[in-house]
């Protein structure tokens, strides 16, 4: 029952460098708009993906620019799933700035605030962050009250 016309799969592998964040965001925007997501939704997933990719670059690339960041996007009619995969190990340390608690550390929170599902898995080959957004959440909620 999947509408194959609206099923899109896309893969992008880029060098681990923050200059490529814009490229990653463009890819997300391209697929998400083809999938029919609203501008506000697209903006939010661009921020979430960019946060995950920035973490992959800053914390999940032990060889620096020699590592890659992998983006895997899957869009079915009501739902987009974006995976950001790096080649490192999850670093379980919050940064400290000049001996004081850091003003950083808002990236993971932002992902959870902007997406409907956030999954962080410490895989064998690298950290996998899966970000999911649903389309037409309101209509889903309505369906709850008026079952077919």
């Amino acid at each position, binding site marked *: 029952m999947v509408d194959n016309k609206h099923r899109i799969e896309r893969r992008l592998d880029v060098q681990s460098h*923050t*200059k490529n964040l814009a490229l990653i965001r463009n890819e997300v925007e391209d697929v998400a708009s083809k999938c029919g997501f609203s501008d506000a939704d697209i903006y*939010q997933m661009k921020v979430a993906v960019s946060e995950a990719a920035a973490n992959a670059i800053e914390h999940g690339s032990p060889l620096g620019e020699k590592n890659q960041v992998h983006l895997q996007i899957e869009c079915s009619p009501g739902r987009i799933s974006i995976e950001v995969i790096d080649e490192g190990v999850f670093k379980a340390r919050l940064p400290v700035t000049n001996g004081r608690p850091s003003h950083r550390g808002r990236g993971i929170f932002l992902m959870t605030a902007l997406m409907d599902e956030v999954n962080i898995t410490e895989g064998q080959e690298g950290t996998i962050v899966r970000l999911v957004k649903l389309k037409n959440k309101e209509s889903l909620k309505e369906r709850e009250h008026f079952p077919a």
Partner: protein
Amino acid sequence: MEVQVLPGRIPIIDVDGEIDHYAVPELESKIMAFIDEGHASIILDFSDVSYIDSAGVALIILSIQKSSPLGGKVGLVVTNKNVLKILDIVGITKLAEAFSLYSSVEEALADMSGEQRG
């Protein structure tokens, strides 16, 4: 980034485009250096900023933390709705110490200049 300094007026730092983890390091060192030159209070004009993420949020907080001990204040001008939403989520819009949010440069200048003269 463009800086407007007029005598007797709070300097305006005009940033445009996308404030992400790529853009922030350069912006940060410029803004920090500018405050260090003796400009305790600044206006960050983000009217033409189309995208911001947690790196930009950190930049705003850092500017406040740099400006505040010098007796200064940071005025932030934001007009883009999507940008405002991000700032709201991370609590920036509710900051009140050495910080104010404005919807235009004129509003920022009018409000902050009064205080500066006092």
